[in-house]
């Protein structure tokens, strides 16, 4: 259990590590080129891993709805945005604002899709996140 918890924390560290390295590549090239290499090298790595472990086409992937295939192009913009932001506002600020956006849009998506959940907890969570964003809002005076 502790081992799996450590792996879950490591997964988060790898997200930050990936953004840091992609951000450095974007400093020498461009945010879009950094996003391209992120996807191509990731593709090669996953292909090799899938060949080693097998089961890439297991299940019924053809049966999934067409819109489920749109994650790639969305990810290109996401990685490019992260690479562009991290060199400008820092790793922590980038991570916190992306998490804030993910959580609040996730709540909105859950409500649209009718996912069950506590409205009170969602309300308190969103309020705390908005308060956190307010604290570092742009245009305030730094003292």
């Amino acid at each position, binding site marked *: 259990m502790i081992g799996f918890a450590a792996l879950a924390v490591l997964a988060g560290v790898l997200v930050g590590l990936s953004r840091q390295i992609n951000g450095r590549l974007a*400093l020498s090239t461009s945010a879009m*080129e950094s996003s391209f290499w992120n996807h191509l090298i990731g593709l090669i790595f996953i*292909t090799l891993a899938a060949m080693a472990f097998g089961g890439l086409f297991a299940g019924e992937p053809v049966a999934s709805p067409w819109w*489920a295939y749109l*994650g790639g192009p969305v990810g290109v913009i996401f990685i490019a945005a992260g690479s562009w932001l991290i060199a400008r506002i820092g790793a922590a600020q980038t991570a*916190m604002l992306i998490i804030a956006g993910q959580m609040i849009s996730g709540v909105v998506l859950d409500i649209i899709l009718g996912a069950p959940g506590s409205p009170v907890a969602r309300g308190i969570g969103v309020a705390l*996140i908005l308060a956190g964003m307010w604290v570092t809002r742009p245009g305030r005076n730094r003292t």
Partner: protein
Amino acid sequence: MNDTPDAPRLYHFAAAFGAGGLLSLMVLFNGTLAAYGSLFFASWVPHLTGSVAALALLIWLRPRRAAAARPPLWTYLGGVSGALTVMLTSATMNTALALSGTIALGLAGQVLFSLFADIRGLFGLPQKMPGPRDYLSLALITAGSLIIIFFGGAS
């Protein structure tokens, strides 16, 4: 004092928040793929279509290279770290941690690493010391996220 390089402007703010919204869509799209196919497939497809989309955008927009000198080779390896993330989360999601525990612990790892990365200026990015307001903001956003993850719903 708002023109210091570490003070985010409104468009930075909007871009990062919007990127978080894109991440929610990616989780929905890729998660749906995983419901029909294998976890490898759910990560392989977006990397394949993403590579093609990024190449098309590069050819179309032809962004200028920021520096003439070639970047060090290790800077091209960010994608390996990203692909490993998918495999790790797929593994821990199916343990007692479940999806909420996986997301919460991943969030903790990401926040702590990003703070450390800023303080040390890791991997050649600018160094940045977080101030009291940054820590307060971080605590509020983390607390709100944890409440949504553990009490806000089934997802």
